[in-house]
């Protein structure tokens, strides 16, 4: 049997978590990933980034 702890980062209300590449309200960290890689941005900024990506 293996014991494996799943680390979930949950964004504050009105915020989105990102590492600059992926975005989510909840991020489940893969083995080797670190919460230090993530920061919060306002949801409006997330929407703007997604819109820019769509138009690119």
């Amino acid at each position, binding site marked *: 049997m*293996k014991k*494996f702890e*799943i680390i979930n980062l949950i964004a504050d209300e009105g915020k*989105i*978590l990102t590492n600059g*590449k*992926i*975005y*989510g*309200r*909840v*991020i*489940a*960290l*893969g*083995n*080797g*990933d670190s919460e230090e890689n993530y920061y919060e941005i306002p949801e409006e900024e997330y929407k703007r980034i997604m819109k820019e990506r*769509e138009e690119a």
Partner: protein
Amino acid sequence: MTIADKLTQIAANTPLIYDKGIEDGKDEEYNAFWDSFQQNGTRENYRYTFGEGWTDATFKPKYKLNRLNYMQGAFRNSSITKITRDASDAMTLKAAASMFQECFYLCSQLTEIEPTLDARAATGGYVFYQAFYNCTNLKKVTLRTNAAVTNEYYLRGAFQNCSSLEELYFTDSDSVSCALDVRYSPLLTARSLESILSALNKNVSGKTLTLNAASRDVINNDAGASYIYAVALQAGWTIAFA
């Protein structure tokens, strides 16, 4: 039989003969068009072919689209609602440089693609780039991907705005080695999520999967999906719920 009876019989058969003539003419026209269009079944390049204006009524290929090469934008902006097995057993790319890039881009009336889109042989970086972009009514599709491709554009934008997608299947486990984003699809079933999570190549790490927030509950409530979810995380895949 009297002459009157014979005339009556001839009159009765005339519409049938007429109708058969019409049908024969249609068949002849159908064969002539598709034989030419599909080069008597040898055509493999359908780049930007079945686009705007094509419908279920007109998309009735004589030869199955099985062995394919360039499929960029092949159905882009068409009004076709379903790609059936009558059209293809499996849409199989045969060359390393072939691709499905933007293949079904803006096909907003498309609901299902029955044949598997088999890109096992394709090694390019943009194979499924925006393949189903804005297929807002697409419910089901099955992919065969190449585990050797790690290019971040391989599946980028493939499922953007696929808000009706319920069933996304990958034929092979450990066959996706690049980022995958299905954030716009809140209706994915547990079996579908299981397939997606199984497809993440456990031999590569540092990759990301983005799912819709609704998929988190589906995973948490399904033993099979939860297990594969944990396996993927342990293998180094980070999973975002947007």
